[in-house]
């Protein structure tokens, strides 16, 4: 998630405002130096791992000859599927932007009562797996099945991907620009729409990218809602058609769509390097009084939270109560909790280890290949879990046999799946750091590696922790790769949940679903605090 701002937003301001905003707007020329090998080497290794699925897809897709590829691609059905998936992604992304930006603005800028609570609560939908929430909705109102149900579930599950970076960006803005605009006669609405939103545009776009890729790759929600999206057909090709070549061809189409979206995002976001000079934090802005809109605003947030969190949790509890007399196996739940926490922690650490070099490079250097390295980690993110899983089965069983169906390969799968979540936050938090600090450290006798360790990483620590938290909670909910690659005999909360639901034992499924939600809520609750933490101050201060 990038939280850098584009300089173009400042061009719209009158000159006095720019002078007063002063130090903030100066652009440092980064990137003329060559990146150090110590960063490039691990970054290349990490990016190479992230594109293993692409290599597998290319190999498999062409395994039956190019004519087969052509046949599959030029079918009417393939085009239909692309259109359907893009339509779903488009609608969900648009709605997520509306809800995410509105929620972030209300929390950051308006005088809501109990802002701290809202801030944390609005991020919590990330703790709820989409397959749980989809099932909760469709079993209550079966007519939701289809496009609208898929939209509903996916919007509620992924608006936090927009909400969180926009909130962090709003917190970081200097209110001086808005104050000057007001003094020039702009109404509050004009300020928000034409100024504030333009300043946080990069954050909005970066969040929208994650939402779009997530929708393209999601299977649980669309399958439960019986919406024929691309992922469903890919799954079908694997486990109903037993046609890996066809699945690979379809997967390649999905990769192509993802590449276009990823390239588009970089273009729309802009390549600004918006470094703040100086240790001063911006003054927090005065909250805007909502007046008679207050009730509507609170109602809006309540509806979002009720639909996204309260309803699925209530359903899960309801299932559990139905099976209350049979009780549940505490030892089994505990063992699953242990395995889940262990795997999630390992995945978070491994992803961070790869994301830090890539993120630092992307933040500080502007060479073309650095840009490609960073972007390549996003492409696999658009693929459904089963494609990543099968590609790692393929590679694992042939090249990495000793770790096949062992923890290291599973952790690698998680890294491939969730690396962009960490890279985004690392990149944006390093971008926030003034380059001057690192330069001064070098003048004091520190080599680039020591500067990274003593200055960059400690100051970017909240952003790094946020990246780790995102990977942690995404891993907790992950299902397809875990099913195929877990060590035989190891069960996570997600696989136990799946086992119970596959035999329609919802009462038994309840404890596992609830455990996932409760445990995932912990890193999720921390996320909003971490992303808005300021490196130079003791946490974020709500005025």
């Amino acid at each position: 998630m990038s939280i850098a701002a584009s300089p173009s937003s400042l061009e719209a301001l009158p000159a006095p405002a720019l002078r007063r905003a002063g130090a903030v707007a100066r652009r440092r020329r980064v990137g003329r130096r060559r990146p150090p090998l110590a960063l490039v080497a691990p970054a290349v290794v990490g990016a190479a791992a992230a594109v293993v699925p692409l290599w597998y897809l290319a190999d498999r897709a062409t395994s039956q000859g190019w004519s087969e590829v052509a046949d599959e691609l030029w079918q009417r059905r393939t085009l239909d599927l692309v259109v359907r998936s893009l339509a779903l992604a488009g609608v969900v992304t648009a709605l997520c932007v509306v809800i995410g930006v509105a929620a972030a603005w209300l929390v950051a800028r308006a005088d809501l009562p109990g802002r701290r609570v809202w801030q944390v609560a609005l991020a919590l939908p990330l703790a709820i797996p989409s397959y749980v929430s989809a099932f909760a909705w469709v079993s209550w109102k079966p007519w939701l099945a289809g496009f609208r149900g898929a939209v509903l579930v996916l919007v509620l599950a992924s608006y936090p991907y927009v909400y969180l970076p926009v909130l962090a960006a709003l917190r970081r803005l200097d209110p001086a620009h808005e104050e000057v605009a007001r003094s020039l006669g702009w109404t509050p609405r004009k300020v928000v729409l034409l100024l504030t939103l333009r300043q946080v545009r990069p954050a909005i776009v970066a969040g929208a990218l994650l939402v779009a890729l997530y929708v393209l790759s999601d299977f649980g929600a669309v399958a439960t809602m019986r919406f024929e999206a691309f992922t469903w057909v890919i799954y079908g090709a694997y486990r109903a058609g037993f046609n890996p070549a066809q699945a690979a061809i379809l997967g390649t189409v999905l990769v192509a769509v993802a590449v276009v979206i990823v390239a588009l995002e970089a273009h729309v976001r802009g390549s600004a390097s918006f470094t703040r000079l100086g240790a001063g934090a911006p003054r927090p802005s005065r909250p805007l009084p909502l007046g008679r809109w207050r009730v509507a605003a609170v109602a809006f947030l309540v509806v979002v939270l009720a639909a996204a969190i309260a309803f699925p949790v209530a359903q899960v509890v309801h299932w559990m109560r139905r099976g209350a007399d049979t009780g549940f196996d505490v030892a089994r739940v505990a063992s699953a909790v242990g395995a889940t926490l262990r795997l999630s922690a390992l995945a978070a650490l491994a992803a961070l280890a790869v994301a830090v070099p890539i993120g630092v490079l992307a933040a500080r250097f502007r060479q073309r290949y650095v840009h490609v390295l960073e972007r390549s980690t996003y492409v696999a993110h658009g693929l459904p879990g089963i494609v990543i899983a099968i590609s790692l089965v393929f590679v694992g069983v042939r090249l990495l046999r000793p770790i096949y169906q062992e923890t290291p390969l599973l952790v690698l799968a998680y890294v491939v799946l969730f690396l962009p979540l960490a890279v985004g936050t690392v990149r944006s938090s390093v971008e926030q750091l003034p380059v001057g600090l690192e330069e001064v450290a070098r003048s004091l006798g520190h080599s680039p590696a020591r500067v990274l360790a003593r200055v960059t990483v400690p100051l970017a620590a909240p952003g790094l922790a946020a990246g780790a938290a995102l990977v942690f909670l995404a891993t907790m909910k992950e299902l397809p790769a875990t099913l195929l690659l877990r060590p035989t005999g190891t069960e996570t909360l997600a696989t136990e949940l799946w086992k119970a639901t596959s035999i329609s034992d919802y009462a038994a499924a309840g404890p596992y679903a609830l455990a996932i939600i409760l445990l995932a809520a912990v890193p999720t609750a921390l996320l909003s605090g971490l992303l808005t933490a300021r490196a130079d101050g003791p946490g974020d201060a709500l005025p």
Partner: protein
Amino acid sequence: MGRATRTVGLLVAAALVVAGCGDDDDGDDTGSAAPSGTITIYSGRSEDLVKPLLDQFAAETGITVEFRGGDSGELGAQLLTEGDASPADVFFSQDAGALGAVSKAGLFEALPAELVERVPEAYRAADATWMGLSGRVRVVVHHPELAPAPPDHIDGLLAPEWKGKIGFAPTNASWQAFVTGLRVLRGDDGARAWLEGFAAQDPVAYERNGAVRDAVDAGEIALGLVNHYYLYEKIAAEGDGVVAENQYMAAGDPGGLVNVAGAGVLASSDNEAAAVALVDYLSGPKGQAYFAEKTFEYPLVEGTVTADVLPPLADLDPPALDLSDLDSLGETQALLADVGLLTK
């Protein structure tokens, strides 16, 4: 570092500590003189169902079985991707389609003749690469008051009196296997014709077979297309309050498809003797009795006592169909989607 950052770091460390105390079974293939040692089973049937039987097997033979559960189709795809290097020894699939696909890829080892010949020809692979272990019959479950004379052939379902009163589970594997069977028996055009007629009946869609059965019992709908054992499961759980009844299909009707859960031994296994011993056990008297008792499915080995609620297998006359041909599920799904019976 801020407080929040430290908290996350502590959490991660705590997670590692807590989970480090957890158990982590590592698969360990120690193949020694047959039949003993450890084998790995990839099972599309649930662990709760199969584990007790496997424990019994282990107690009797000393062979440990590592259980790896999953969706039959995904496990099949995994086996196809793993190829010769697969760590699996036995593949126990919920349906024949996956078995057929793995067999066609040449990944199974042929089972000994005396083993496969325990089950009738229709329920095993022609080349002895896999054998059925229990059978599931497609039936029409009906509410006796709302449907006192339910049809016993699928074309009867297209009659106007049943419009809006039939329930089914569109994503269920058994329903899709039935449609695949229909395509094999009547050809794609014939299948499409029937499906379009069925779709015109406004059938009510449910998530799962169990939900269909419950709806019939509650009188919400008159007829439901499910597998036979769902009714008996409900009766076993709830007793005499259940009113719904099973209507078995006429001889040779596509609606009476018998699908099988079955197993095969992987050629990549390095402990074949133990693997064969397991299949032997599953198709032996103890295994067959277990399935009959636990799941109300039809044990396929002749001579096993079936649950007394079930009509004898011999009385049913399922359509003549090579179950291996049920692996073209991809086209079935495309057809269903096209007709509007799969997705919305």
